[in-house]
């Protein structure tokens, strides 16, 4: 009985040793991966910060103002004026006739189940 226990113990030690060896190398590999990822995160963050800075630089009000005046003929951009505030009450509703469109075009009126019903 005793030799069997010895052999089993020996095998167990061998097995544990092998497991510990594997774990050790796995851990080191994981640490390497993590530091690689950290470096990647850092460089991406750096790039992100730089792009944010560049975005802010390209969107600086001076430059936008210059671009707006350079492209005035095409875009017609002007500073916001107080008179540009409209009132919803000033907008006219679209005419009801237009809602139906061309009555001869069957595609436009297929959705209407009950012609008596008020249009929405």
């Amino acid at each position, binding site marked *: 009985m005793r030799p069997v226990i010895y052999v089993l113990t020996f095998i167990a030690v061998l097995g544990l040793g092998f497991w510990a060896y594997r774990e050790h190398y796995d851990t080191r590999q994981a640490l390497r991966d993590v530091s690689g990822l950290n470096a990647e995160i850092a460089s991406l963050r750096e790039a992100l910060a730089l792009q944010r800075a560049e975005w802010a630089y390209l969107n600086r009000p001076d430059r936008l103002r210059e671009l707006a005046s350079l492209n005035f003929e095409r875009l017609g951009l002007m500073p*916001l004026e*107080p008179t540009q505030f409209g009132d919803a009450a000033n907008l006219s509703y679209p005419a009801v006739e237009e809602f139906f469109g061309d009555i001869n075009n069957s595609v436009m009126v297929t959705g209407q189940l009950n012609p008596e019903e008020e249009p929405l």
Partner: protein
Amino acid sequence: MTRTPLRPLARILKARAQGENPDVIERENLRLRHEQQRDASRNRAEVRLLILGFAFFVAFSAIGARMGIVATTEAAEPRSFASGAEILAQRADITDRNGRVLATNMLTHALYAHPKDMVDPARVAGELAAIFPEMNAEDLTRRFTDGRSFMWLRKVLSPEQMQAVHDIGDPGLLFGPREMRLYPNGQLAAHVLGGTSFGAEGVHSAEVIGTAGVERALDARLRDPALSATPLELSIDLTVQAAVEEILDAGITMMNAKGGAAIIMDVRTGELLSLASLPAFDPNNRPNPVLPKDAEPGDSPLFNRAVQGVYELGSTFKIFTTAQAMELGLVGPDTMVDADAPMRWGRHLIKEFQGKNYGPLASVTDVIVKSSNVGTARLALQIGGLRQQAFLKSLGFFDATPVELTEAPGAKPLLPARWPDIVTITTSYGHGMSASPLHLATAYATIANGGITVKPTLVKQTGPRPGVRVMREDVAKESVMMLRKVVTEGTASLAEVPGYEVAGKTGTADKPKRTGGYYKDKVINTFASVFPASDPRYVVLVTLDEPVETSGTEPRRTAGWTAVPVAAEITRRIAPLLDIRPVVEAPPLDQLTAVRN
């Protein structure tokens, strides 16, 4: 182990035969046995002590060795630690109230040299001088060869310069990573931001410290590692600031002024949406101008006129006198007061602008609308010097402004040492004591806020902060209505912006000479206004330094002609940006143009 009996029979019998006491033998044997036992346990204890001692020795040596290793080696980041934002950004970003970047960090490199490792110092010096215009080849060669082992060459490099230095290919030239502060908007809000410089410098990193403005005043917050990932949100609105600076710049040019300042303040929270002072500078490259000896501090572009420009603010002060008189119940808006000019007080003569006379009697409203010095002087005398001082103190005119700028605590108002009646009179219309435009804007915000004080701030707030009531709500409302009349019928008619009910007061003050007395043709023009008058939301304050308007037959130097049109244009531009609907009749339908969001 053989055990010796305590009473060996042979010896006992022998002893009995000889008539001795056999108990002696037993005691003797017992004694011997105890000695043996004692020796054995002592040995065992000694061995145990030895083992214990050895164990302690090993344990302490291990701790000592570990401490030694930790102390002598360079610290390494724990590699398995989940990393966050702390990799970059040792200094938090600064954004405006809508999250647009005002200051951020950029990774760059510093250049340093190990002259002892250099292969050919003379060639290196020559090539460096070709890359960097500020370097001198001869000077560099001398410093490379004088035996030093380390020297800094440049604090920051652009990527192109770094590549060029790489191409020199000398092992004695080395790069250290640097985090550089970047202000993408250039001169915009330069005085608010201030600037930064490098503090303690090492090869691997350098400290970035604020040198002025918000960067310095909130340095601790910006450098707090726990908050480095959260940007500092200022109350500044970048779009508003840009519009204000553009208009102010145009205004300074048109009015031939030396400089100017503009302040936009939210009257409920005290947030400064814009704080502009021109001429400005580029905080990316903060200049260090050497001013000529006879120059005023205001001549430097670094001078923040809005906060540091402590001047007599002129007639803009009159509203405080009338407000206090109404608060004390001495007068109402329609009470007639003596405004007969000129007024004699001791050996002083109080006159009106251009020697006019608004008297003999004028209503309190008219005193403000026509800007009568004599009327306010009479009111001030009724109030009395002590109560006047207490009121101005409650409005913040006796202390430096609490705004988050390094320059603010140094800009204390200039107060007369004594307060005789003549000072009470002159202070009532804004002469004799000096304060900064920010002081004035804060006081106007208090009136516009229904009489509750506000604290000016540059940091975005979530809501109004508790203030102290310094005047009744109806007095504050009446005061705003008087200011409104200044625009509709008085000296600030050019301030009218259709739909925005601007209410404000002009102020013109002669600039004091350094040698004493006042200049005849140098003035500070101020226009302090609030809008919309029916429910005040914002204070707009414009001040121009030495303006002169030359479109007429003779030069005009009153605020009504210089600061007022600039303020009106600012109001017209920023009110829509601040989402304030004008109270205007809608234009006819056919004039509406489609505007896409």
